[in-house]
Structure formats: C-alpha cells, structure tokens
C-alpha cells in the first residue's frame, strides 16, 4: 500500500500518511507564504476584480489550496471584500471560505456580517437561504446576537428553502451558545413548525428540537405528533423517512389497537427500495411489537429478501453491513437463512473481511439439509491461497463438527493428507478442542494423528499435538516415539509453552505406558531442572520431579483428570438469544463492530464523557457526587443539601458492625427501582466518595445480592445500612438503622444514599 514509505523524512509528521501526500503537499507547503502573497495580490488587482471569470478563478484557487490543507487565512480580508458581489457562484465560494476560517479570524469575520445581513433580506430566496445558512455556520463567539433576528425572520419566511435553513439554524445557534439554556419560545415555534407544508422543514424541525432539547431527553413524540408524522411519511423522501422512523422509536402506543394501526401504516415501508428505510421500519416493528414474538418473526421473514439482496449487492460495504445484521438475526433464529445458504458462498474476488463474515454465517445456518453442501464449499476454502482465510475455514468446520462430528472429522483428516504446514497446525488445534467437547470422535482423531508432527512448526500447533499425544497416548501406537523426537530436540525448542506442554504430556503418557516413557521422562526432567533457563519451565520440572518422589498413586490422582467435558460446549456457544435483546441495536453500528468491540468503544467514550463534562454541569449536586476527584466540591455542597456531614475514614470492624446491627431496630426502610446488570465495584467506589464505608458485600452476580454499609456524621451518629437486591423483583431494598434517633439527619443520609444509587443507575443505562 505504501510503496515509498521508507522515503519519508523522519521529521515530517505529514509524511506518515504515505508518500504521495508528501510529494503533493510539500511544494506548496514550503512556499505557502509565497502562494498567499501571490493570491493576495491577485485578489486586490482591480483588473482581475473587474473581470468576473478571472476573479472567480482566483477565488477557486484559494478554495483548492484550502482543501489541500494550506493555511489560507491570510487572505481573509480580501475574501470578505469579494463577498459583496452579485455573482452567486462567487458568493458561495467566499461563504465557504469564511465558514472555514471564521473561528481563526473572528474580528475580521464580523466585517462580513454586514453583507450577510443584507443578503438575508434579498428578494431572491436562494440568496436569503445561502446567507442565513452561512451566517449560522460561522462558529465564532459573539455571532449569536447577529443571527438571532435573521433566524426568527427566516422561520416565518414564505420560501420553504429559507425555512429549512432557519430551522436548522436554531440548532446551530443553540450549540454556539454553549450553555444549556433553552429558549422556550423558540422551542414552541419549532414544535408548531412540525405542521409545516414542506416535508423537509418538518424533518429539520425534529432534528433541531432533538439537538436543542438534548439534555432533556430530546424531542418529545406524543400521540398527536406521532400520528401527524405517520400521516406525512409518504410525502417524505427516503432520508426523511429513515429519520422519522428513528424518531418514532421513542413513541409508545397506548393500546394494542393503536399499535396494530401503526404497524399497518408502516407496512409499506418494509417494501421500500431503499435499504435504510427498510431496516429503519424493521427496527421500529421489532421494538413496537416487543410483546408479540410472532409479529417479530414475521417481520424478520419479510426483511429476508432485502437483506439477501444487500448481501449480494455490488457495493462491498453494503454487503458487509448486511452480513453483520444477518449474523445478528441468526443468533436468535438459527434456521432463518438456511434455505438460502448458497447466497453466502464466497466468490473469488471478494475482499477478505466479507469472506470471513460469510464463513461465520455459513457456520451458523448449517442444518441437516444443507450440511453436505456447506461442508463441501468450506472444504474448498480450506486450500485457499490466503492462509488466514484457509485457517478461518478450518476453524469453521471445527465449529460445525460439534453437531455433525463424523463428516467434519473425515474432512479434517483428509486435509492432513495435504501436508501443508498452515493447514496441519490448525487442523490439529481443531482436533484438540473437538476431542474435549465431543469425546465420541476420539478414536477417529487418534487414527489421524500419526505423521502430522512433520508438518507442524508453530507453537500453537505443537502444543495442541503434544496435548493430544499426552492425554490420548494409550490409543496412539507411536505416541512415545513422537514425543521422544520432541524430547531429543528440546534444546533447540524456542517456545517455553511447548516445553511446559511436553513435560505434562510426557508425565501423563508415562502413567499409561511406563515402560516406553521412563527413560525419556528422566532425560527431560534432567534437562528441565539442570539446563533450562526459563524459570517457569524449570519450576514445572521441579514440581513434577517432587511429585514423582511422593509416589505414583499420588501422581495418578493429580494428573488423571477427565479427558473431555461436553458440557463446556454449552458455555462456549450461548443459547439462542431472544430478539428483544438486540432489537434496539438493529440498524445501528453495534452489529457492525460486534458487541464486544462496541462495548470497549462505548466504554472509552463514556469515560471521556464522564471525565471532563461532569464537573461542568450545573446540576451536579442534584445528580449526586460520584467522581473521586471532585471530593472538595462535594464537601462544600453537601452541607447545604441537608446539613449532614459524614466523617471520612471512620472504618468499623465487621464484628462491631454485626453487634451494633443486631442490637438496633430498623429506622427506615425503602425500595428503589433497579434494573439490569449490577457492578458492586462501581457502587462501592461511589459510596466511598460520599464517605459511606462498605463493610461487606456479596460478589457480583450472586442473587440475592446483599451489602452492608456504615457511615458516621460529625456528631458521632452512626448509620448502618443493608442493601438487598432480590433476583425476581427488580428493586433495591434499603434498610437503615441509626444509633441515635434523629429523623432530620436520617432523612438527609437517605437522600445522599438515594442520589448515589440513582446516579449509578443512570450511568449504567
């Protein structure tokens, strides 16, 4: 991809992106000042200014350099002058320039406001719209006061083009303000504009309201609005439809009747030719019908066609996204795409990531009818020129082998006959996992193993082979001789993990075939103890040596563990997940990234969001202190919130706590709502911050979950608390005991506790 990357200069940061950007950019980059000077001269030249085309061309050059990443802010003054023109193309170019550099030159940009304001009352709606849009996009401090009036005028403009711009302008203005103050009159105006004639104005209103009311949970979709939107749906274009479908997700129909009316209205969008609309409608169906599994299944059957079409679409990107969603559906309905298995056969020219997805899909949709054909196809992939793809295919066969063991083991055995290194090693690893999960195939695997040691070079493969020889060595006639080869060459072995595996395997084999193994076991132990430099291997050797000294019966008792565990398979592939568990992720980026990857992404995003932003919010005291760094701030705020001062670090012993707990009566009992997962560590940390100590708590996941907390205020009053989370009723039960009966402090203590738990609940959801 980067043929000349080594040519890049080490000092040049820009060069790290590849050779060509360097060569293209370097010339103008070094001479960028000259370029600016030259352009400046040209822009000031009255002859050029008089010639419309030449003037426009110079401006185009400025834009081009701007795109290439040169700093063109030097000609800002000249560009402002160029904005006063009747040539609308030139105007657009200049406004584009200004929007880019206004944050850098706010004082100069103010000079342009005059022209923009004048344009906002131009008789031509296109000019009005353009000026308003540009003015709202200036993104510099202090511009709000100038744009407020034009926006308000724009909202009542008779041209829909200007109204569209003005509606989005409201969101821009709100975000420029920075503070979270919401202009109630403006919001009302926007809500009333939802009834506008122009469909794009309607959709823009939704978007704008969503941004303005972000902190309050976004735009409210009540019954009249929802029904209004549903009725306007057919007037919208595909983008509007997709967006409105997304907004409708938050509407909850009051009755079953209304629900099915809505579903009937939406039916036609499942047949739309735009995949975005189809998927949006599908998601809405899945969410609305969450209590009607048969409706959900029905919808998923109907979306099959569009999804399959997308899977074989010409656009690889669309194909990939569709495949990810197919996998998501297969998790809940394993047989869903089984009759279309041929659609998921890879074709030669597809990129790697699509092939891998397809193999995964094939693996999941296999059933009694298509297993023969799918395996036949997968077998073809195993010899693919790309080693990675071949290995993925072999692992896939291994996955299918858990259900269709005999056929798969036969195919895998045949693959060993090819004597290809990268194939053999993966096949042996697959065998190892398979024998553990499906003990019935042990015989076949043991027959296939002899001979493949010649074709294994990598650590993983060697480990798998040695493990198999050790555990099932009594069924493989030449097992001791293969291991002997490994023992002979142990000095040149580079992977410590292989040596560890060899030690264990040889000792196991020694137990079943002592005569053949005794000698080499001695040699291996001697080598590991006397000559080996890797500490772990050495220790393992010493450990086995001492174990052998104890006596052979003891060794047998310790080493001869079960050789297979079919129940592990259940752990590895979780049972079918209900549709509702992923319905809210459908048609988002979650299935595309994969659930696990998404979790890490949203985690680091969440950390960013909580980190810098929380202290800024004004509602901090209400939302409850959580972040340890904000200790000081909290201590200032807590007294006014309830005149309660909890003393830090007053740690009680568990014994004392128990004694006190038993001697006191419950002063207060309360239940708080609690849903979903639970992370005791987070809770403990949060409580720590407000100086509530955790005395004891159950481990995460245990049901019922319990925790005991203690706290003491500055007057010496003790609060002892029990938190109880019952598995079935989704509530947290709180019981508080107090050693001095003072209701005032008790109430403030409880409110502190409540906010902490409430905050955690919020963060979690």
């Amino acid at each position: 991809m980067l043929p000349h990357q080594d040519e890049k200069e080490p000092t040049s940061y820009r060069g790290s992106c590849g050779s060509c950007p360097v060569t293209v950019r370097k010339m103008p980059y070094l001479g960028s000042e000259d370029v600016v000077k030259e352009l400046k001269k040209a822009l000031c030249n009255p002859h050029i200014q008089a010639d419309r085309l030449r003037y426009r061309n110079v401006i185009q050059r400025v834009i081009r350099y701007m795109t290439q990443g040169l700093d063109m802010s030097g000609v800002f003054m000249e560009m402002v002058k160029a904005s006063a023109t009747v040539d609308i193309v030139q105007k657009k170019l200049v406004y584009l320039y200004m929007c880019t550099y206004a944050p850098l030159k706010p004082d100069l940009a103010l000079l342009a406001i005059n022209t923009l304001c004048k344009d906002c009352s131009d008789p031509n709606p296109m000019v009005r719209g353009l000026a308003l849009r540009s003015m709202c996009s200036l993104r510099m401090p202090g511009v709000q006061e100038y744009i407020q009036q034009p926006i308000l005028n724009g909202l009542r403009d008779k041209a829909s083009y200007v109204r569209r711009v003005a509606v989005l302008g409201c969101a821009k203005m709100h975000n420029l303000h920075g503070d979270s103050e919401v202009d109630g009159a403006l919001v009302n105006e926007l809500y009333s504009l939802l009834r506008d004639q122009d469909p794009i104005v309607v959709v823009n209103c939704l978007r704008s309201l969503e941004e303005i009311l972000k902190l309050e949970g976004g735009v409210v979709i009540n019954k009249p609005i929802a029904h209004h939107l549903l009725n306007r749906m057919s007037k919208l274009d595909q983008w509007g439809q997709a967006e409105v479908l997304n907004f409708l997700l938050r509407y909850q129909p009051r009755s079953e009747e209304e629900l099915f009316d809505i579903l009937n209205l939406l039916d036609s969008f499942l047949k739309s030719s735009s995949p975005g609309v189809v998927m949006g409608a599908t998601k809405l169906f899945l969410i609305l019908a969450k209590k009607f599994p048969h409706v959900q299944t029905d919808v998923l059957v109907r979306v099959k066609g569009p999804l399959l079409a997308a899977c074989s679409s010409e656009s690889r990107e669309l194909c990939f996204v569709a495949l990810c969603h197919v996998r998501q559906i297969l998790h809940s309905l394993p047989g869903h795409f089984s009759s279309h298995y041929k659609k998921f056969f890879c074709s030669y020219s597809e990129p790697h990531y699509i092939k891998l997805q397809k193999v995964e899909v094939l693996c999941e949709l296999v059933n009694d009818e298509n297993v023969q054909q799918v395996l036949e196809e997968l077998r073809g992939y195993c010899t693919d020129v790309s080693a990675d793809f071949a290995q993925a295919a072999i692992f896939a066969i291994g996955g299918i082998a858990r259900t269709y063991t005999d056929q798969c083991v036969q195919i895998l055995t045949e693959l060993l006959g090819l004597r290809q290194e990268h194939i053999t090693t993966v096949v042996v690893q697959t065998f190892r996992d398979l024998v553990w999960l499906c003990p019935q195939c042990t015989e076949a695997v043991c027959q296939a193993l002899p001979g493949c040691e010649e074709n294994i070079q990598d650590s993983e493969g060697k480990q798998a082979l040695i493990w198999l020889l050790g555990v099932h060595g009594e069924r493989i006639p030449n097992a001791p001789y293969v291991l002997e080869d490994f023992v002979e060459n142990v000095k040149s072995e580079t992977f410590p993990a292989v040596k560890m595996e060899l030690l264990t395997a040889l000792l196991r084999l020694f137990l079943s075939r002592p005569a053949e193994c005794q000698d080499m076991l001695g040699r291996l132990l001697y080598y590991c103890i006397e000559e080996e430099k890797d500490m772990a291997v050495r220790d393992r050797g010493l450990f086995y040596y001492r174990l052998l000294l104890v006596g052979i019966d003891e060794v047998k008792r310790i080493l001869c563990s079960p050789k297979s565990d079919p129940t592990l398979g259940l752990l590895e592939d979780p049972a079918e997940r209900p549709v509702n568990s992923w319905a809210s992720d459908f048609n988002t980026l979650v299935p595309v990234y994969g659930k696990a990857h998404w979790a890490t992404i949203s985690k680091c995003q969440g950390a960013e969001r909580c980190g810098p932003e929380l202290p800024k919010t004004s509602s901090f005291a209400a939302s409850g202190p959580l972040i340890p760094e904000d200790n000081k701030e909290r201590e200032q705020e807590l007294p006014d919130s309830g005149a309660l001062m909890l003393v830090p670090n007053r740690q009680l012993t568990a014994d004392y706590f128990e004694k006190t707990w038993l001697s006191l009566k419950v002063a207060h009992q309360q239940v708080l709502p609690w849903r979903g997962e639970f992370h005791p560590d987070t809770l403990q940390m949060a409580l720590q911050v407000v100086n509530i100590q955790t005395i004891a708590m159950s481990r995460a996941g245990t049901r019922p979950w319990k925790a005991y907390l203690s706290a003491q205020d500055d007057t010496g009053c003790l609060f002892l608390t029990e938190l109880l989370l019952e598995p079935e009723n989704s509530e947290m039960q709180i019981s508080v005991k107090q050693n001095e009966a003072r209701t005032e402090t008790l109430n403030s203590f409880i409110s502190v506790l409540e906010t902490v738990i409430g905050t955690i609940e919020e963060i979690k959801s």
Partner: protein
Amino acid sequence: MISQFFILSSKGDPLIYKDFRGDSGGRDVAELFYRKLTGLPGDESPVVMHHDGRHFIHIRHSSLYLVVTTSENVSPFSLLELLSRLATLLGDYCGSLGEGTISRNVALVYELLDEVLDYGYVQTTSTEMLRNFIQTEAVVSKPFSLFDLSSVGLFGAETQQSKVAPSSAASRPVLSSRSDQSQKNEVFLDVVERLSVLIASNGSLLKVDVQGEIRLKSFLPSGSEMRIGLTEEFCVGKSELRGYGPGIRVDEVSFHSSVNLDEFESHRILRLQPPQGELTVMRYQLSDDLPSPLPFRLFPSVQWDRGSGRLQVYLKLRCDLPSKREIPGERVSSARQACPKKAPSPAPSLSKLQPVSGAEQPRAEGRAGGGSPSLGPASGARRLSTLGPFPDGRPRAPRTSQPWALHLGPSSGSGPGQSLL
C-alpha cells in the same frame, strides 16, 4: 448526523473536505483515516472504523474514498446509501466520477455538498430539486482517445460503431443542457448483469448467480413520461409461466420507487417519469437453473510436466455473444485448484470463473422503446485462449500416492494466471 465529509484519492490526498459541525478534530481527520485504513490488519473490516469517539464510514467508488465521520450511533445502511447516492450525484453533475473530474470541479462539488447536507443532515438528494440551486457549470475535459477514432470509418464509410453514440456519450454532466451545445434529448439504458459462475472441470455448472439491473441515464427534460417494455415472456418467481417458450425467468425483482407498475402485470410495461441523471430502474436476481445457456463456454486443460515441475493451465473461453456487442469490463479470475475427482484432496476439480460482464453496448438512444434483460444472447464468435504458467513454477510436491493431487498455492493473489484480460 454527519460531522465531516471528505473525498480522498486512492493515494490518500484530500480532494474535498467539508466540516459540517465543527465539533471534532480539524482536518487531520482525513490523514488519520487514511493511516488507519492502510494500517488495518487483513481480517478486520475497514468499512466502519472507530477512533477517539469518532466513527469513520466510507465507500470506495471508482478508486476514490468517500468518507463520512460521525460521533453518533447511526444507521449504517442509511449512511452507506447516502454515500453511494452522493457518488452518483457527483457523477451526474461532473459527467463522471474520478480524481480528475473532482479536482477540476471543486467549486461545483462544494456547492452540491452545501445543498445536500446542512449541519450534517441530509436535505435533499433529488437531481430535480438540486438543479435549481446549482449555479456552477461542470468543467469537462475531453482527452484524446484512440477509442473514439474507431468510430470514424475509413474514407467516410459507415462503420458498425458510427451508427451508435460513442461510449463516452453518457458520461456528460446533466446540467450541461444549460449551455448552448449539446441540448440533446437522450436516454441511455444499460442492462448490467453480474454473473458469478462455478464450473466443474467437466463443464457442468455447479453454481450460477446472476445479479442484474436496468440503469437509466436520462437527459430528457424532467417530467417527460417514459415507458419501458420488457418482453412479455418475462416471468418472476419459480412458478409463474408466461408465453409458450421457456421464457425469461428471474427469481426476484425490485423496482425503483418512482416506477409505476400498473401495466406491469398485464403487459410488462414499466412507466416512469425519470429525473435527470442516473437511476436504477429495476434490479433482479437469478440463481441456479438458468433458462438459457451461459453466454460463454470454458474449456480448461491442465498439463503438468513432471520433469520440469511446470504446470500449464489452458483456459479457453469461448464467448457466444454476437460480435457487435462489446463487453467492456470483462474480467476473468480463475483457477483455484485442479485435481482429480477422487483424490482425497482439497477441492473437487473446479476452477472458478467470475467474468464481470458490464454494460451491454451499444446503449439505446432516443426514446427507449423496449429493452429486456437478455440472459441468452444469440451466438457469436469470440474466443480467448490463454496460458497461465504458475508463478512459482512448481506446485508444492504432493506426497500422496495419487499422481494428480495438486494443490496449487500461488502465494501472491495476482499471479499472471489469474487475470486474463
């Protein structure tokens, strides 16, 4: 909600860059994207990438990267659709989409983007609405091409090609009607079929998959109605039967939302009022049993010279298309493995063939009276034969007892044996 949009050339140079919301990291983003893309491990998908709270979603179109960034968990389907719509739009307005046309028409592209997206929200993508707002005219360059010369007959004689429009006729901007010159009312109708075929060594078809679409590029004034008649024997689904012959059958068909299907059931007529620019009128799919033979035949022959360890693969491809039709984008990628049927070896004896046959030229000109997704063209003569010597010379020696268990693994994906045309 889109934060930024940019177009990168295949080498990573930014051609177009627009920041809609100013909420995220400046213009280094384009570089960051390219670096991430090129540094991605092979098994990860580049379609959606994440960096520092920002998602990159891109499509590759005619060797350009069209990328959007967003910080929200958006619908990937809609975004990809938008990107491909943008690609079509840019193609419509600039004549064709490519590095050259984009950099020549920077002003036009920015103007388009400005109207299509505001604050990262889609406003409209319809050519009709947009043409009212777009003022810049496209700069079209006409490079000299030998291909054009072929349409000039010797001594003024009429050639086959001179009867039809040159192949570049369709790649002109929709807006050029404003200028004086080509005020032609033209319609171009393409039937594009993609065939994925798997053929066994004995010539029988193992798997056939046809994806077809009827693409329309219209330069007619908007509002003019058009009727496209398909052959009356066109059947949809496995059970339907029309006409007397075997008919032309497809498994599934879907139409653009602007197509009026009133007369489709009775007379197989599609009525539509096409907007200017390109439009996919109909998509169809067909798999497994084809109603007509393939438009080509393949004769493989494999010879392994044991002495020199060389393997020679001859793939003779006979095209049954009439000679006056051209297949511009034909590409044959082939040769997976070859080995005898009964050997306990990797694959059954097959070679994989995926010609990507492109548009059927000549394109219909004027009001299209009838076109049909022709699956079985008449016979013609075109023969390609090729010799594919395998790059690493010697197949890795098989040790099985069968003399013929070959498993070829040309280590690089693009040996000379793999692209024939």
